[in-house]
């Protein structure tokens, strides 16, 4: 096994996957289908999704709309039933070999960290993936230390995972996924179990990874987390019903309600105001925007 790459995007395993232009499409699927064995309908029915280097694509949809299935397919953990094109960091997700290599380049963090914690203690868990890739021990130690400190886990490094709180478990799982240098990251509701500060920490970490050039697919039920995305994709029963800037989705309130989504709190308040006859010039998605619209102090 070769030495670890110095930078996530610096040495792709497959030369064909090397960025050919500044914003290489790291995730590129078209007409993606998946049907669970024995299921009467597709969990994903002809989905298109592209995420370039440094791009943050949010994915929203009701419980059961296919978001988690999408995460597993993009991470090469499940074989698509069919697709016109299914590339992850240049690897073909339709072939077993492609999925195997894709799993190294694309990190996936799942909804429930319980399913991802395998080792006896926090630091061993963070090291687990690197050990599987046969990194040299000193490199593993250095990388694990870096991850523990990035996610505020230094004081918990010897703690057994079952004694961690939900939020601590999620941070441990994220540290483990990111210990392996990645080119793309798929996060399935990564902040669901975190306290507000933990949520900010994870979002800041994801922003940092985006700045480093990782393509980010961010599945969430938190509408506040969608606002800063480059693009948002809304799913309904496995089908894409919206793809575009966040503001465009939230402006279509009927669609938002039909999809069992919501607006960020500022938007919900603006709707309640409109129902009482006070219409704001534009739909605010942040508290600062709302205060501007209300003409109050900032």
């Amino acid at each position, binding site marked *: 096994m070769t030495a670890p790459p110095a930078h996530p995007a610096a040495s792709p395993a497959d030369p064909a996957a090397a960025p050919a232009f500044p914003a290489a499409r790291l995730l590129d699927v078209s007409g993606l289908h998946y049907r669970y064995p024995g299921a009467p309908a597709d969990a994903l029915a002809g989905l298109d999704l592209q995420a370039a280097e440094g791009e943050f694509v949010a994915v929203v949809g009701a419980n*059961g709309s296919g978001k988690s299935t999408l995460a597993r397919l993009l991470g090469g953990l499940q074989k698509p039933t069919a697709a016109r094109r299914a590339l992850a960091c240049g690897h073909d997700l339709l072939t077993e070999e492609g999925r195997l290599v894709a799993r190294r380049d694309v990190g996936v963090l799942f909804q429930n960290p319980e399913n991802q914690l395998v080792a006896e203690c926090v630091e061993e868990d963070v090291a687990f993936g690197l050990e599987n890739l046969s990194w040299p021990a000193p490199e593993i130690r250095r990388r694990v230390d870096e991850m523990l400190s990035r996610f505020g886990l230094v004081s918990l490094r010897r*703690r057994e995972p079952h004694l961690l709180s*939900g*939020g601590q478990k999620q941070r441990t799982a994220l540290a483990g996924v990111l210990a392996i240098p990645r080119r793309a990251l798929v996060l399935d509701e990564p902040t669901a179990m*975190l306290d507000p500060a933990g949520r900010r920490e994870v979002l800041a970490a994801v922003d940092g990874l985006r700045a480093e050039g990782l393509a980010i697919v961010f599945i969430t039920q938190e509408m506040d987390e969608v606002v800063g995305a480059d693009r948002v994709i809304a799913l309904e029963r496995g089908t894409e019903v919206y793809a575009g800037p966040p503001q465009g989705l939230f402006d279509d309130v009927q669609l938002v309600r039909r999809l*069992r989504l919501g607006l960020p709190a500022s938007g919900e308040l603006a709707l309640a*105001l409109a129902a009482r*006859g006070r219409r704001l010039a534009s739909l605010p998605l942040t508290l600062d925007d709302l205060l501007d619209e209300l003409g109050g102090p900032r």
Partner: protein
Amino acid sequence: MKPRGDAERQLAGPERSSAGMGLACAGVSFSYAEGGERLPALRDVSFALEAGGSLALVGASGAGKTTLLQVIRGLDEADGGAVLLDGASSGDSRYEALRREVGLVFQIPELQLFAATAFDDAAFGPRQLAWPEGAVAAAVDAALEVVGLPPAAFGGRHPYSLSGGEQRRLALAGVLAMRPRLLLLDEPFVSLDPGTRRDLVAILQRLKGDGVTLVLATHDVDLAWALCDEVLLLAEGRVAAVGAWDFGAAGAPLLAANRLREPFLVELWRRLGRDPATAPRDFAAAAEALA
């Protein structure tokens, strides 16, 4: 299943009063064993909540929220201090019966669904309490109805054929079927889509209106603010603040120091130069005040 156990217990079950239960903790301490060490999780926790009250249990991840709920439910026994249900502690003859009227909805409770039908899953608790089958059926049907899973349409469904949001409702129905007078909820909104969250808030508002005592552990301060009249802030297992919400000079910094934030409507009120103590609990009331 044939009912067994003493008649008094059968009667106590489905026929009980629906009014809420009073809850108090007096100097409750608890620690987990790790290797040879003890990891303190709760330290001298004291508070009182009146019957029919609603308490938000907030604090950073790891502050002890889940542990406190488990100690109140009696799944873990306190190392020190006492949990009082309607004034009765574990030495009291009334305590065991009262303890069965405390419902706990676990974090991600749908992971514990196991029966072949939604009805049987929700019936598990009442059957454990050896209620007569007729009473079980009535309680389960009512509970499924309350959570928006009408028994005619959903009772016969396999739990795994339900969507994630429906599974969460089913897990809640399993607890409600036991007609708890004190309902403890551990992060009930996690992983729910916003529409299902709105539905769950409405269900909990209704239970609150029926007089059920609510204790809601959550890091979602907006929903805690919408649902709960009182708040208990835990910090490393200790009570950092308890009682009415306070966003005065001490309140907001205390929340921030505990990895929390002010509820959205409170922050809005403060930044509009209004008194945060008068911030409304929901968007409709806020719009009414601002329109």
